[in-house]
């Protein structure tokens, strides 16, 4: 009897339940509330912020904030080979592949996304969108994938076709 009453109460509450999950836990999250956390950028450009930056502007940022670990030209990997950012295009099928942004990474948006969330190593999330577009443009330039006078923004970045775009094979079952 009490159970029936309880059930009736739940059914009466059903219209409100559409605003809630089955347990009613959690608090609604508004876009404004999570804006500073919602930092991912996808290959189709979703999530890229407004802004723009040039290869030349990026060179200045790169020299000041990136070169110490990655090397002045990005080919050096100044403190570890895994930190090489440039070079190696065409080397993946050789016995000594050189894995870099230019030779291996399938999407230019990933470079922006990762730099935005995790770099510079000693001050993550400190670069502005303009600075991020600029340093992304410069690293792509170091790989010969953008001319020296190039400028990147949310429209142009996803359109860059990386050399190894089609180099990845999802393992069966991952889909």
């Amino acid at each position, binding site marked *: 009897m009490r159970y029936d009453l309880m059930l009736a109460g739940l059914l009466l509450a059903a219209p409100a339940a559409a605003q809630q999950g089955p347990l009613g836990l959690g608090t609604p999250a508004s876009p404004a509330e999570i804006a500073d956390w919602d930092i991912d950028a*996808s290959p189709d450009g979703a999530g890229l912020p407004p802004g723009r930056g040039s290869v030349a502007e990026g060179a200045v940022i790169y020299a000041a904030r990136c070169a110490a670990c990655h090397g002045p030209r990005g080919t050096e990997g100044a403190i570890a080979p895994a930190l090489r950012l440039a070079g190696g295009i065409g080397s993946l099928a050789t016995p000594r592949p050189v894995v870099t942004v230019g030779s291996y990474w399938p999407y230019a*948006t*990933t470079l922006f996304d990762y730099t935005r969330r995790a770099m510079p190593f000693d001050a993550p999330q400190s670069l502005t969108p303009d600075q991020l577009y600029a340093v992304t443009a410069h690293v792509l330039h170091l790989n010969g994938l953008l001319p020296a006078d190039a400028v990147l923004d949310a429209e142009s970045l996803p359109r860059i076709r990386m050399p190894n775009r089609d180099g990845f094979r999802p393992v069966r079952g991952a889909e």
Partner: protein
Amino acid sequence: MPRLSRRAFAASAFAAPGIAAAQPLAVPPGMLAQGGPVDVPYGQPAATEAGVKRRPRAGPGYAPLLGTAGSSLTPLGDLDGTITPNGLHFIRHHAGVPAIAPEQHRLVVHGLVDRPLVFTMDQLRRFPTVSRLHFLECSGNTPFYQQARIRPDWTVQDTHGLLSCAEWTGVRLADVLAEVGLKPGARWMLAEGADAAAMTRSIPVAKALDDAMLAWGQNGEALRPEQGYPLRLFLPGYEGNTSVKWLRRLKFAESPFMTREETSKYTGLMPDGTARQFNFTMEVKSVITRPSGGQSMGPPGFREITGLAWTGRGTIRRVEVSTDGGATWQDAALQEPVLSKCLTRFRLPWRWEGGPAVLLSRATDSTGDVQPTRDALVAETGPNFVYHCNAITAWRVAPSGEVTLAV
């Protein structure tokens, strides 16, 4: 009666064991006075166990970069059973351990959902809870692909120490996702950490709805900071980095987000230049932990060979052990309970006659997968694959009793 020198006494005892009179056993001094205090707020291992500790892999290139990006390995050769003590669980971070106040921590769940929600730790703890025993293995464990980089002096801590096992407590992710309501197009979930790498991986929604957990408990206590305190994703059987620590955000989309950790890293480069991507599940694997590299056999006689077996695909069905480099194999006993996606301890009695021996173990899992030899694995993947090495490990026992890596 002439006094024997220590050396001469030892020699005579060796020559005629059992005949020389044994010295009377001293009464332990600890029995003759009160011992240490009872009020010990958080117990520590015995001081003489101080050598049982985590450390980076031996060799050039394995020290953590700038002290915060790297790994520290579980001393598997010093441990018994299957549960890793919390202070010895392996560590792998990309940007150090953040200090997070649990009352400040939030989990945001959004994207292709009906009701974007933010959860406090208190709210998450109101869900029905679950505890499960599972292994966690870094996909870079056991770096055997490059023969030139394998060191004979590596111990099982060096070769397999990016492997641990614990009882994880938390909530089923499926229950949390019922609260937000996934939209029909939601096929991938981005999981993001609150560390300085904002570590991110894309996970298939099918896994999120299957056995994924949001965990705050590790062997009965709160997660250790280096294991993601106060909250981590836990994906049983998947490569370790996907169980994102310090979890702050889950976002749902139709396609994978192609983060750095699933394109530039954690992909396997094949000889033809293509790479395997979204290689999530850790394959069937085993290793003998005793006797193993760096250990010494002592005098000939009875020894138990013991080790660990695991698979991300289900349960361990069989472990075979060879003491002659693979010429003959014997079935090892499996310690019950044999649990899914959990370490299984195996044992085989052995009499070491004092000669050379090469010890191998080979596991088979519930799907019928059999652990490959290193040669067979490298023939399939090439030498630059980096991740998911589940090759058979060989330990060489010298007549002196010293044990070295023989892969």
